[in-house]
């Protein structure tokens, strides 16, 4: 490339007009008459003005300047203008794009080139600021994960980071996540989803779960990852009809619903960027509608989540992996030949080879190898005898429930009766707002009398056996920090007043984010008791405390587990002590009996409960089932019998789960992925 001579020739500019096709110049040197040149633009970009005489006489200048091409900008210094400038080049020039199949220069450069050509520059600060802002919107490669910045209230552990990177980079978004229970598979799936969403690689997500987990997933995705999902049981989803599957970008559906024949065409006719299947061991048989559905889904990425991929037969593993990568384990026949012991279908052969094959698509982290300390949990029931007024109130509420629950009336609906029953299990104070609101609405005269009696007694009752027991226990603990849980805000307020001689902070959903931060900080610093509702403290770091009291017991064991999970989580250094306060002879007393004795809930690993309850195969919510028993039993004896029966089923489910867990541990140990 030949450069030009480093010579600048200047002449005085009398007038210059530049438009798209012409440059009208009026130039002069001192003492001479202005000379006007009308230049038609051409594509030659060179000019060589070597002698001032030429300019002076105009001799040859037109010719020379006309060779300039699209002369656009004159660099002016005072009244001097250099006889050259920035040249745009041909406007209609076809800019050659370097030819390569997968390299594209996609933006049209001319708007920017023209700005510079015209001297239409942005302020320097704006230019540099734009550059800084642009850096923020850059999506880096998967080495640098983005999801951690958007996850809310989630502590992310090294095994999760490794899993996310392995799935993104080595498994290319098609993976079986089989971490042991309690290591955060859901968080891993959420982080993976966010990595894709944040990079614009996933715009449509389908999460398939058992019916009981649909709303839990919706909550987790909303609270932890700020992603709104519509559930397939939502009114808006139903209202959209057949178009719903393609219309909503993020859907959570139960597998049972999606696999229904009438739904299949819509589900299969939709392209999903990412499909997540929770409790994926339900897809272990390839002849089931669920397996066929997931296999046939039009999907780019797929994550299968299960802590127990194999339950009865190694074929189940083959079936799950075939959903991810058909052919990864060759064919069934070959899989059997190479990897399955013919006399025992649960015993693998060529274990090393099999582990290698499955490590291409599967990650299984074990608690023992994460390096995370998991402390034990110890639960104790503090059983109390209700004081006479309390007992009377309890009986009145139970009577009201049994009188009206079977009738399922509009005025005193089942939902209200269930609320009253569970509030009674919490404290008399919890009942007050509900009864007051009931009394303001229409009730039958019998109902009015019964509710009135309950309301009056509840309002006057300031003593409680559980409160007395709590005070005693707190005294015995000395100054140890405790988290005191209650389900109801009214109970929280009453406890706050009743325990005003203790350094206590309250924590509930209605506090602002800043107030919540401050409450936790105060609890960390100098308060002894954190009095919290269930809805208050998801994801907050409470591991510095290792004692909790359940002042009341939610009927839904998952809620109990969530409470325990606040303290008994990764990062907890001490054994966690759980004190459950319970009035003898109440519904809660019997639920506690089942959860504590039959399935040992309080000492389970977080996450195991899901698997046990999942085995019950209940379509109905557990809370609803219990309420049904409470509301339709004629007396306490019948109710106890029915609850016992449920307890036995739960016990069996736990035993089955233990067997499968032990089998999977033996089969897989740890698979780190890739």
């Amino acid at each position, binding site marked *: 490339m*030949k*450069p*030009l*001579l*480093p*010579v600048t020739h200047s002449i005085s500019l009398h007038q210059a007009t530049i438009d798209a096709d012409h440059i009208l110049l009026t130039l002069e040197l001192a003492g001479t008459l202005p000379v006007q040149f009308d230049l038609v633009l051409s594509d030659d*970009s060179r000019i060589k003005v070597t002698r001032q005489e030429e300019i002076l006489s105009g001799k040859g200048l037109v010719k020379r300047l006309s060779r300039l*091409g*699209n002369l656009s900008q004159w660099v002016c210094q005072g009244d001097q203008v250099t006889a050259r400038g*920035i*040249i*745009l*080049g041909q406007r209609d*020039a076809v800019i*050659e794009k*370097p030819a390569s199949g*997968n*390299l594209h*220069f*996609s*933006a049209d450069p001319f708007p920017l*080139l023209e*700005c*510079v050509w015209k001297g239409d*520059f942005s*302020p*320097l*600060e*704006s*230019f*540099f*600021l*734009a*550059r800084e*802002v*642009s850096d*923020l*919107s*850059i*999506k880096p490669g998967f080495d640098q994960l983005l999801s951690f*910045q*958007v996850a*809310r*209230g989630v502590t992310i552990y090294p095994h999760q980071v490794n899993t996310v990177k392995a799935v*993104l980079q080595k498994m*290319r*978004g098609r993976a079986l996540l089989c971490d042991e229970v309690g290591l955060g598979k859901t968080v891993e799936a959420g982080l993976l989803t966010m990595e894709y969403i944040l*990079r*614009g*690689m996933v715009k449509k997500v389908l999460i398939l779960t058992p019916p009981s987990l649909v709303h839990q997933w919706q909550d987790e995705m909303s609270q932890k990852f*700020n992603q709104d999902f519509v559930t397939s049981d939502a009114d808006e989803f139903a209202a959209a009809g057949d178009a719903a599957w393609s219309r909503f970008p993020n859907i959570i559906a139960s597998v049972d619903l999606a696999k229904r024949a009438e739904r299949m065409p819509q589900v299969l006719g939709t392209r999903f960027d990412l499909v997540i299947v929770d409790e994926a061991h339900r897809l272990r048989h390839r002849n089931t509608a669920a397996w066929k559905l997931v296999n046939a889904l039009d999907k780019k990425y797929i994550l299968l989540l299960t802590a127990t991929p194999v339950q009865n037969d190694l074929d189940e593993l083959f079936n799950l992996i075939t959903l991810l*990568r*058909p*052919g*990864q384990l*060759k*064919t069934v026949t070959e899989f059997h030949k190479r990897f399955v012991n013919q006399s025992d279908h649960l015993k693998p052969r060529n274990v090393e080879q099999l582990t290698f094959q499955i490590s291409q698509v599967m990650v299984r982290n074990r608690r023992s190898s994460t390096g995370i300390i998991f402390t034990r949990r110890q639960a104790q029931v503090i059983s109390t005898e209700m004081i006479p007024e309390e007992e009377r109130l309890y009986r009145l509420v139970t009577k009201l429930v049994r009188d009206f629950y079977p009738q399922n009336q509009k005025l005193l609906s089942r939902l209200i009766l269930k609320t009253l029953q569970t509030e009674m299990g919490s404290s008399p104070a919890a009942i007050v707002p509900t009864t007051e609101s009931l009394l303001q609405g229409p009730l039958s005269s019998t109902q009015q009398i019964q509710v009135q009696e309950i309301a009056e007694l509840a309002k006057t009752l300031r003593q409680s056996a559980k409160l007395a027991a709590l005070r005693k226990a707190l005294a015995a603990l000395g100054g140890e920090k405790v988290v005191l849980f209650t389900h109801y805000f009214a109970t929280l307020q009453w406890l706050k007043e009743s325990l005003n001689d203790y350094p206590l902070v309250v924590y509930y959903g209605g506090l*602002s*984010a*800043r107030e919540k931060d401050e409450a936790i900080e105060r609890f960390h610093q100098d308060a002894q008791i954190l009095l919290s509702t269930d809805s208050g403290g998801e994801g907050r770091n409470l591991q510095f405390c290792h004692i909790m009291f359940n002042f009341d017991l939610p009927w839904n064991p998952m809620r109990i587990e969530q409470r325990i999970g606040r303290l008994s989580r990764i990062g907890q250094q001490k054994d966690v002590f759980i004190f459950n306060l319970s009035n003898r002879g109440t519904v809660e007393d019997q639920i506690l009996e089942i959860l504590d004795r039959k399935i040992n809930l309080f000492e389970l690993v977080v996450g195991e409960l899901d698997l046990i309850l999942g085995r019950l195969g209940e379509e109905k919510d557990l809370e609803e089932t219990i309420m049904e028993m409470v509301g339709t039993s004629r007396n306490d004896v019948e109710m106890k019998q029915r609850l016992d029966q449920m307890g036995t089923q739960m016990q069996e489910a736990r035993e089955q789960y233990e067997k499968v867990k032990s089998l999977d541990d033996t089969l897989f140990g740890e698979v780190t992925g890739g």
Partner: protein
Amino acid sequence: MAENLESLASRFFSTVGIVEAAGYHSIEVLLDEPAQASFGGRERLRLAFSPEAVHEHRDAELVTYGSSFLDIMTELATARGNTAHIYLNGLNPTIGRTLEKVRGQTRIPGHLIEVGEEQLLLFHHALFLFKVSLIGEEREESFQNVMVDLHTGWTSSRIDEQSLRLYTSGDPITRKETNLLLSLVQAYQIAQEQLRADMVTQVKTHEEDLKAACKLEQKQVSEHYQTLIARIEEGKTRKGSDPERVDARIRATRADQEFRLQDLEKRYRLVLEMNLTQLALVSYLKAAVPLRLQQGKLIRPGIAIWDSLTRQGYITEI
């Protein structure tokens, strides 16, 4: 990092409106009229920089890395600052040892018969900023720059943009200049070619990895389906089987196989997109020494140039 985002967003929005702190990790912005169009005509924005802050202000827009809001903000910022004329008046190159420094980097073509006086000359450059997106099984974006000397066509990649900022005070440099050789279109084409060359190696390695992975998966899929088809075909020989039905199943299985193979092809395709996002004219002084060079019977003038910004020396014919 969220703190950076918050402070940068506040800084940016204060250039397009009025910013007020609105509580826990959130700000409120009153936008100038021209900026409103980028935000759907809205005059006010409430922005939150943490999920907790959104929880508190339900009407707030969450601004996080990767959020679409950030893309809109970037678009607006870029539109407002897409070009600049940057004079590097703080660079202060010195005269002395220019030829020596240039010689340390490049061989002089021919016999040097005359060396002129060292001087500082003003050079203009076009600095092209490209957003490069590598789109395949993952999406990786980066900014790459290429600077083209408009006098010589000499290119430099990966200019440290921070140093440009450090060396400029905004005031123009008035100095003797060399003549320009290139038009902006030519410079763009050179930059484009340079960037392509820079990226090609990176893409090639990546592409080869992907091709190998794709081939392996396609082989697995083909084998899997061949076995399936063979098994279905066995059904033909079974007593009472309906050959038409069997054929239909085979056709469906083949179609499924084809779909999966094509899907794999799509998933493993790698595309590199390069978009020009900003362009600056960068002007600064370089030390230059006029030369006369003899190659055989030919005597040609040349110039040795030392670039203090890129720390590069070169000799060019004139």
